């Protein structure tokens, strides 16, 4: 798959995790694409931590209103029924467990469900933004990312970069597999059958518990 196909594939699979009525926060980058694949028969409310629920698609050039932006500062629109609020209310919603699902990218995730995505010491220090609150507060945390970083494992026994949060990830979705963090470790629950199980194991540093995984279905 080309890079954009990989991203679309992951985003489509993530969209199947969403349910009618869910309040969902999509991180910048790949997770944002999930919005394009939400099933038509359900209603999902996108929360944006800079202060809105009901985040809609980017406007056409002539309809851009720079007072309506997402958490990346890019112009978006407001869906019918949506509303604006301040940052204190926004993180009350996030930390208070009122976000059903948060979807984020990550640099590393480990088999305890810890993740690292806000700093590479000495190299890159973007900051955590709202990510630490989101993964701590949301009911379900989904990591959506490429399985490796150009062949280098990102799904580890234990994160080596400074953590964003400990033990908060529920599901990891990549172009190779869907993995669930459970009490006893990381379960491979679905795999993309254009890869062999062996290839997936090889691309994963974490110990994968494999017990009759089904095939990833992404239409």
């Amino acid at each position, binding site marked *: 798959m080309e890079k954009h196909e990989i991203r679309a594939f992951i985003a489509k699979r993530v969209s199947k995790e969403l349910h009618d009525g869910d309040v969902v926060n999509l991180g910048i980058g790949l997770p944002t694409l999930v919005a394009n694949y939400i099933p038509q028969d359900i209603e999902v409310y996108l929360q944006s931590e800079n202060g*809105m629920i009901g985040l809609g698609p980017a406007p056409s050039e002539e309809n851009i209103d720079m007072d309506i932006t997402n958490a990346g500062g890019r112009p978006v629109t407001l869906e019918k029924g949506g509303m*604006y609020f301040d940052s204190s209310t926004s993180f009350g919603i996030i930390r208070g467990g009122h976000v059903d699902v948060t979807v984020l990218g990550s640099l590393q995730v480990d088999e305890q469900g810890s993740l690292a995505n806000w700093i590479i010491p000495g190299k890159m220090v*973007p900051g955590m933004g*709202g990510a630490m609150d989101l993964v*701590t507060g949301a009911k379900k945390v989904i990591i959506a990312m490429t399985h490796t970083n150009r062949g280098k494992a990102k799904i580890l026994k234990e994160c080596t970069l400074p953590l964003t949060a400990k033990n908060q990830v529920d599901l990891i979705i990549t172009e190779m597999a869907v993995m669930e963090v459970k009490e006893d470790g990381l379960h491979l629950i679905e795999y993309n059958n254009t890869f062999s199980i062996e290839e997936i194991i090889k691309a994963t540093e974490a110990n994968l518990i494999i017990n009759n995984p089904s095939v990833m279905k992404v239409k």
Partner: protein
Amino acid sequence: MKKKIDKSKISELLFDGMSIMVGGFMCIGTPEEIIDEIVKSDVKDITIICNDAGLPGQGVGKLISNGQVKKLIASHIGLNPEAGTLMSEGKLEVTLTPQGTLIEQIRAGGSGLGGFLTSTGLGTLVEDGKKIITLNESNYLLELPIRADLAIVYGTEVDHYGNVLYTKTTRNFNPVIATATDKVLVQARHIVKEINPDYIMTPHIFVDYVIEEGK
């Protein structure tokens, strides 16, 4: 309107070593005209409290470029590479704080709370130097209030009393920082006669000075 001042008077509100809270999120809802006046002044060693480091040539980014900022307390600096560079060169002190914790610290500063307990940041570098409190077998970080000398706020509508209404996603940090500083200076997009008393988001009692945008 009593609280309205000319932009040329902004420099009188500034002093070296002061702390300033700045409204806006990736420069959306940031009072750019106030920042331009701070850039024009020779005030230095400022501590900035803001969601982010702005963008190159925009928002807080202008103050950082101009070498006026000693310390930045923010949740994210990724969209302004200059901030990262100055930080690694030791020329800018940066405290990175989770966004929800940062806004809650400011709210605590404005509403007279001594601190609050949150799970955000547990098991991460954010713990460093903080007290951990255990309640019913759950751990929490004790986070402390933040206050500053001046808040600079962007209001879409400001009425003759100084009441402020924010619109759309320009609201973000603005109404919260307006509660947590000794003085509050608002850049008004529009000065209006009155605002419906149910919709006022910052009561006039918090507002000290207003400038009118583009004037």
